[in-house]
């Protein structure tokens, strides 16, 4: 800091009475403001997130009858969709996007979600949000085509009877492999263990504890969300046998390598798998016959939604088979709606990688919350990946 120089006295000494009263005013108003903020804080946050009452005085934003605020993944929103919805219903849509379920939940819980009437959480997040009492039940009668849902999504394990959510899109987690080198078709998870030698150093698994432990549990014939310590231990032991042959645990680092042939087999999400198939016809994505995990993105109406009528109109519009088919065909996601499925382009509809046969789909499972066993999963996972 510069040394005190003469001009200092010029400023501070000019009018001591005025500056003293000004200081006093600032102190008082500062105290008053912070007091008001703190009391407001407690009230608004209390009503905003956990027991969001619809009559909350804070739900002032974006309320008007003609605006619908949507909080979504970037993928589900495109300008054409917003424009055609506005033309059809006269409701203006304002879309905000998030990059992970966790960001979305944090924002809602911090009180930043009061303007949204539509949110697109993934399966496990629906359960979590329902537990936190953030969702309002879906009135099925206001959802046209609800009865067209595939059997799998009539009552998914993450939200029994679709009480709070409407499934919108789904995909699976399976295997991508190089058919040129692995001439015998890969059909089940057991292939990894049976052909350990050939695959050694040429295979990757997802960097995700639940996906990897889940498929090993599946290959042992258990549920992928088992909470039984014995079953989890058995899965860990089985994985430990495979460990020396695994090149790495990576969620998207495998794509480039498998396309050029450096890898032979990768554990992958269906979206990425189908994408890889398109860029190298020698690659094949399969959903193993003993079942894979299936993820679902849903549409929900939060409890604090300011514009419920518009939200139902939005649901009706977006799950309308024609609209949904256009969006999902672009994204290469699968649809839980029978009529939408019929409208998908033939090469997608008849692609067993995207839509597995019913017999396989029946064995697929959503990753459910394992609450108490989470620590056990994490401990085995650490042992596996660090060992």
């Amino acid at each position, binding site marked *: 800091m*510069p040394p005190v120089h003469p*001009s200092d006295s010029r400023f*501070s000494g000019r009018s001591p009475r005025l500056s003293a009263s000004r200081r006093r005013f600032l102190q008082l108003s500062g105290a008053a403001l912070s007091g008001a903020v703190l009391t407001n*804080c407690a009230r608004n946050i209390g009503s905003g997130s956990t027991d969001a009452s619809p009559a909350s*005085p804070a739900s*002032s934003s974006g309320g008007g009858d003609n605006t619908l605020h949507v909080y979504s993944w970037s993928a589900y929103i495109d300008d054409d969709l917003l424009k055609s919805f506005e033309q059809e219903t006269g409701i203006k849509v304002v879309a*905000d996007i998030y990059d992970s379920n966790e960001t979305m939940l944090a*924002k809602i819980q911090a009180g930043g979600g009061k303007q949204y009437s539509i949110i697109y959480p993934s399966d496990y997040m629906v359960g979590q949000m329902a537990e936190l009492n953030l969702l309002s039940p879906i009135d099925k009668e206001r959802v046209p085509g609800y009865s067209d849902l595939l059997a799998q999504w009539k009552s998914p394990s993450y939200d029994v009877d679709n009480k709070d959510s409407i499934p919108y899109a789904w995909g699976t987690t399976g295997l991508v492999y190089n058919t040129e080198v692995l001439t015998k078709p890969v059909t089940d998870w057991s292939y990894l263990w049976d052909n350990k030698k050939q695959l050694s150093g040429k295979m990757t698994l997802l960097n995700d504890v639940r996906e990897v432990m889940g498929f090993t549990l599946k290959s042992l014939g258990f549920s992928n969300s088992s909470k039984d310590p014995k079953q989890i231990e058995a899965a860990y032991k089985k994985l430990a046998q495979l460990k020396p042959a695994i090149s790495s645990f990576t969620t998207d680092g495998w794509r480039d390598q498998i396309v050029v042939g450096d890898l032979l087999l990768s554990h992958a999400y269906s979206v990425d798998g189908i994408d890889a198939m398109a*860029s190298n016809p020698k690659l094949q994505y399969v959903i193993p016959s003993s079942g894979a995990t299936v993820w679902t993105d849903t549409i929900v109406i939060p409890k604090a939604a300011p514009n419920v009528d518009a939200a139902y109109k939005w649901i009706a519009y977006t799950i309308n088979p024609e609209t949904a088919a256009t969006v999902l065909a672009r994204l290469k996601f699968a649809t839980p709606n029978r009529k939408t499925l019929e409208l998908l382009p033939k090469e997608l509809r008849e692609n067993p990688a995207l839509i597995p046969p019913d017999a396989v789909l029946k064995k697929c499972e959503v990753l459910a919350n394992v609450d108490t066993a989470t620590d056990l999963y994490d401990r085995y996972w650490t042992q596996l990946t660090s060992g």
Partner: protein
Amino acid sequence: MTSPHPLAKFRPSWQLILTLLMFVFMYLPVLVLAFFSFNASPFSAGWGGFSLKWYAKMFSDERMLSALQDSLLVAFLAVMISAVLGTLMAVGLARYKFPGKGLYQGMSYLPLIIPDIAIAVATLVFLASLAIPLSLWTVVAAHVVFCISYIALVISTRLTGLNQHLEEAALDLGATPQQAFIKVLLPQLMPAIISGCLLSFVLSMDDLLISSFTAGGGTTTLPMEIFSRVRTGVKPDINALSVVLILGSGILAFAAEYIRFKGDQQQLGK
């Protein structure tokens, strides 16, 4: 540094090797990214020939461009507001004495060390508690919080090196305090103000967490759009966009450094 022995010129010193290694470590990934933005194949493992299609795709992607526009708007507004407030704050802190100055000084630089996520959540809770609807302006306000600190910091380091007698001389010669400030102090501070602005502009463009917590009403900044797309697979059009952004930020940073350098030179010359 340089040895008088002629042979030593050809033997690289360890400092040189270390410097080169650091540069490779820092800039090789950027070069690889730039290189693959011209790759016709969507996969970086194989070279599919030279192509500008990702650039074409990026420039025809309306959502991406509107996100870029939001980002630029937020950054411009936040920097403009912070430039005025930050300059006044730095000058005030350097010139005046008032009770609680030490505390204020410490607090004004806190945003530099508080993690983004804390600023983000705190700002959102604050906005929610006052029932202020989220919009572009709330993002701007949140960005002003950290931009002010950076700008004030840069300016206050410059202030310590200034010759204070110049301003006093102006006052002695009959200038009003306002005139002295605008005609004498401000021109001297200008290089620091500009480089502080450019620094905080780049930081504001870069911010993901604070924006995603405080954005609403359809405002989407570029980092938010990119991270939301990662889930459905990132295509090389993101590489192309990164190259454009790196070039843009690089030019900005270079301009900031150049202006600062010129300013220092001018000051030394006097």
